[in-house]
């Protein structure tokens, strides 16, 4: 059997990947974060209407380590981070792998504005000279990065009103097909203040109960990270889980058990912020790859 050249060919990118992951660890350690590990096979994920977990015997592979990490926060662990594999059934595209590497980090006693600062600092620590050259474009990483609300994005980049999009269940479609391609790419961009119906595990903005404190970070047109001012009201969280689980059942999806230990311990947390960042997509940006398949040794198709 001849050498697998498609595998050998990726070695320079995978060497860069290894150094970037080492630099990420060094960054968080230097900023006083504790690296944690939580099981990747769990009895229950947070129910999300559009995220499907991969079953593993009578449990599931994690779609995110978020519930375990928030339990650690609630137990007083302080600033924590984790780099772990996550699985999402059926997600495969130029920016999606069904098994991928996620970086999550959390800070107690802060809100999502601190996360924006963290993102700016992390990328500047990883990219020399505060810039990225991605697919022929130069992305200036000098902070601060522009912040745009979802409301502003709808009024600037599409004919569809936010109200219409939500009423017709076309929010994701308009964001993905009409807004994302038009977002400026000369600098990274925080898209923030999502409608409460898209809040997930984010808290409602104090003083404006129509939006949640959630942001998505876009770099070079790629959606790189999703952050919340974490919802710490256990009753409201239980209520949202019930609604999301009802939506899952309505779509005919596998029912999920309620993550009771998480809900029981959440009330010990007063305030916190957390973020999930796709490492493979970050590698795409830092190594100038236009397909996520180039950032890993093995894609599912090659196994």
């Amino acid at each position, binding site marked *: 059997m*001849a050498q697998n050249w498609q595998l050998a060919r990726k070695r320079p990118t995978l060497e860069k990947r290894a150094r970037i992951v080492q630099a990420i660890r060094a960054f968080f350690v230097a900023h006083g974060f504790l690296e944690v590990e939580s099981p990747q096979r769990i009895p229950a994920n947070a129910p999300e209407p559009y995220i499907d977990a991969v079953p593993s015997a009578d449990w599931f592979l994690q779609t995110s380590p978020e519930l375990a990490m928030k339990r650690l926060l609630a137990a007083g662990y302080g600033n924590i981070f984790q780099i772990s594999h996550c699985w999402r059934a059926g*997600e495969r595209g130029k920016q999606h792998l069904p098994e991928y590497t996620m970086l999550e980090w959390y800070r107690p006693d802060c809100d999502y504005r601190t996360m924006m600062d963290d993102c700016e600092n992390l990328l500047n620590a990883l990219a020399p000279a505060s810039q990225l050259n991605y697919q022929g474009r130069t992305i200036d990483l000098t902070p601060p990065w522009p912040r745009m609300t979802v409301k502003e994005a709808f009024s600037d980049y599409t004919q569809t009103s936010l109200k219409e999009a939500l009423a017709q269940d076309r929010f994701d479609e308009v964001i993905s097909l009409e807004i994302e391609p038009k977002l400026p790419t000369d600098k990274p961009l925080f898209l923030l203040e999502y409608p409460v119906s898209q809040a997930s595990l984010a808290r409602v903005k104090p003083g404006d109960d129509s939006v949640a404190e959630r942001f*998505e970070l876009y770099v070079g047109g790629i959606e790189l990270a999703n952050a919340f001012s974490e919802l710490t009201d256990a009753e409201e969280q239980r209520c949202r889980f019930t609604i999301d689980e009802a939506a899952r059942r309505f779509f005919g999806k596998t029912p999920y058990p309620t993550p009771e230990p998480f809900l029981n311990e959440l009330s010990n947390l007063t305030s916190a912020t957390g973020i999930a960042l796709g490492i493979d997509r970050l590698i795409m940006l830092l190594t100038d790859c236009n397909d996520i398949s180039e950032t890993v040794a093995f894609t599912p198709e090659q196994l």
Partner: protein
Amino acid sequence: MYSCSDLKKGLKLLIDGEPHVIVQYDFTKPGKGQALYKCKLRNMITGALFDRTYRSGESFAPASLEERDMQYLYQDETGYVFMDQKTYEQVILSEATLGDEKYFLVDNMEVKILMYGDTGIGITLPNFVNLRVTQSDPWVKGDTAAGNNKPATVETGYTLQVPSFVEEGILIQIDTRTGEYVTRVKE
């Protein structure tokens, strides 16, 4: 019936009663939102190209068309000529119908031709084809790093990335489904 998770490049679907093939495909999913399946489709009869985005939950009828075993004969001004070896019937495919697959045809190759009535509207090639490299820049001395690649052109005019040790005149194996280099063929 197919569901969204079956969609991929090359899949043949019946849309408005006519056979269509997916020529480009991408999966996209915003944040925590709904999955979208972006397809560029070619109407296999008219050749018309158009984009369509599907959402999970949609289903599709397969375009069940007859495929016939044929042999590639030659190319002339009418197009690419194939022959059914049992009936000696000949079918001609245009360059547009073949697309990039024209680069992987070699004389006497056994292929499957997709038929719509008496008209050939598509082709299924063998998974691998051997083609000779006709042009590639020479290997630079000292360049021994694993994974180093360079462009090469093969006898059919197709250009692809190959390892740096591949020189002009050698025979290489190409995966016709991805268009990628597989290995050097020992002669």
